[in-house]
């Protein structure tokens, strides 16, 4: 655990230099995020289930939180805090990297904090997608690359993408397209919803092949 925290700190201090100019003023700090998460209303998963249909979430993310096509992310089994944060980020416009994000903003505009919390708790109550295979993890997942200052993915997202370490999202079983899109948008800086630019920094020196490989690996986990 100690090493994990250390590596995160290392990454954070690097990014403080690297991205000084691109960090928007509205960006989260650990403190403001913690406060936002702590002060969120208690979620009601049953109400969240209704909202999932009423607000058309289900038309892309599935009735049970599993997206029916690879075009959209699955949300089942996702950390409640992560879903809630994402919805806040869409609402504030902090996530606006592409038209998909704009669709989310149009929807989330109409949600109250209670609605967001209900949805987040509903998705958290569902079983994450199971796409598991017996593929060995790529070295970037287990070891990262010290030469390029790339932290092992597993140090925050877990070896099988279960997430939850330092508040990171679960990514196991997510569609490869969704994962690759996230990495590409972090890499280009179009997506800026990561705390302290951790993901922007981690992806900065990835090759396109590595992005493919990571997307494929985590999409095949349970």
């Amino acid at each position: 655990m100690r090493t994990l925290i250390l590596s995160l700190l290392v990454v954070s201090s690097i990014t403080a230099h690297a991205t000084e100019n691109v960090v928007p003023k509205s960006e989260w700090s650990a403190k403001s995020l913690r406060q936002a998460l702590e002060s969120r209303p208690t979620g009601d998963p049953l109400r969240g289930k209704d909202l999932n249909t009423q607000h058309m979430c289900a038309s892309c993310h599935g009735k049970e939180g599993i997206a029916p096509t690879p075009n959209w992310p699955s949300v089942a089994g996702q950390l409640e805090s992560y879903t809630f944060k994402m919805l806040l980020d869409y609402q504030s416009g902090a996530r606006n990297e592409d038209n998909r994000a704009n669709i989310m903003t149009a929807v989330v505009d109409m949600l109250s904090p209670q609605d967001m919390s209900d949805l987040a708790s509903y998705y958290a109550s569902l079983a994450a997608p199971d796409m598991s295979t017996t593929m060995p993890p790529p070295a970037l997942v287990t070891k990262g690359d010290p030469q390029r200052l790339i932290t092992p993915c597993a140090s925050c997202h877990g070896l099988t993408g279960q997430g939850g370490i330092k508040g990171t999202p679960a990514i196991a079983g997510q569609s490869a397209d969704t994962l690759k899109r996230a990495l590409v948008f972090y890499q280009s800086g179009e997506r800026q919803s990561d705390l302290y630019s951790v993901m922007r920094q981690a992806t900065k020196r990835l090759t396109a092949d590595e992005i493919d490989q990571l997307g494929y690996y985590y999409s095949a986990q349970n």
Partner: protein
Amino acid sequence: MISRRNFLGMALAAGAAGLLPLSARAATGKVVVIGGGVGGSTFAKYIKMNAPQIEVTIIEQNPIYIRPYGSSEVLNGHIQMSDLEVSYDALRNKYGVNVVVDKAIGLDADKRVVTTASGAKFDYDRLVVSPGIELLYNRIEGYSREIAETKAPSGWIPGSQTALLRDQIRNMRQGGTFLIVAPPNPYRCPPGPDERGALVAEWMQKYNPTGKVIITDPKNEFVTGQDMRLGWNRLYGYNVPADMREGMPALQQHSEAGIIDWIREVDGGRPLAIDAQKMQVETEQGFIKADVINVVPPMRAGKVATAFGLTDASGWCPVDPYTFESTLVSKVHVLGDSVSASPLPKSGFAANNEAKVAAYAIINLFAGREVEEPSWENTCYALAGKDYGFMVIGVYGMRDGKIANLPRPGFQTLDVSDTKHRLAAVYQQAWMKSFTEDSFL
């Protein structure tokens, strides 16, 4: 007759193109497409994407396509006329389609040759006719093409009439009336006339708040009817008729007349005659005076389909749903609004799907393979306002030798939440782009 390079090569090898026996062409062939709209363009693109060796020529009268889908948004300034223009460059340069600007005027179905206005002849193994619609201006007393182009535009085929109508609406006096004469079934773009009414009502709220929109209709219902009436009720002070409230969510009861009114057939909405001098329309319930009159006349299959003997008594073209080959003239296929393929609607979306079915069928036919069982889908997006939309979705397949509606998953109850309306408006805008891309680019 224009030969593309690969064909020229084959022709040289064989001595003369005209003498080339069909069997020597094996899985390839020559297709001529009349009409470069959604049907013809999607067809040409999908043939070339999947079987680039097939020679495809589009004969189209206009050098630039002006898209009809979404064109009512010109009337209220959401978009400009130039936003409707779609180039044929991608079809030519990216896909190798031979796009010829000319007009098809003659067909010899036995010799399989099409003649054009410029005197060129195009021979084919398969002919695809996708000419859209012909507006029957003269079917309404007092109305004509000339009046449509000068006084009371239709704008149902976009172009100068669309621009004229836009200008008339903009220049209308404060408190004036914009009257839409809706068409009888079947017609292109089922939610279109009522969507147009809503868009102009939205514009009036801002620029002519004492103005009125009246839709006079020979029908009692239209596609997206409940959704549209709910939108009108919420946005434009429209009171839903008492006998149409069943199954609807709580409606607002407006004490004053709203901006928009819809006169159904049962209420005497059927139009009888148009007087462009007095600017009034006679309907079964009486005369309606207006400042701007927009007539969507009855319609039938595009002129060339009628001229080539592809239509039946209904005015539309019967086809085999597996291939979209005409049941009247062999080796000639018909696509899009001209086809009678109910329950497939007369929409661009349906034309695009029909084109893909026909493209795959013709590739299979050229290769000597069996034609696959087709399926189709359709989505009609409609707006009641810029940020208020809805959609109808259909999935279709073959049942007992006929095209049938299939069950589909859906989250589209009438009033699920405001999200539905906001999202549909977002989707509608995205669809305009991605649909054009899929069909032409």
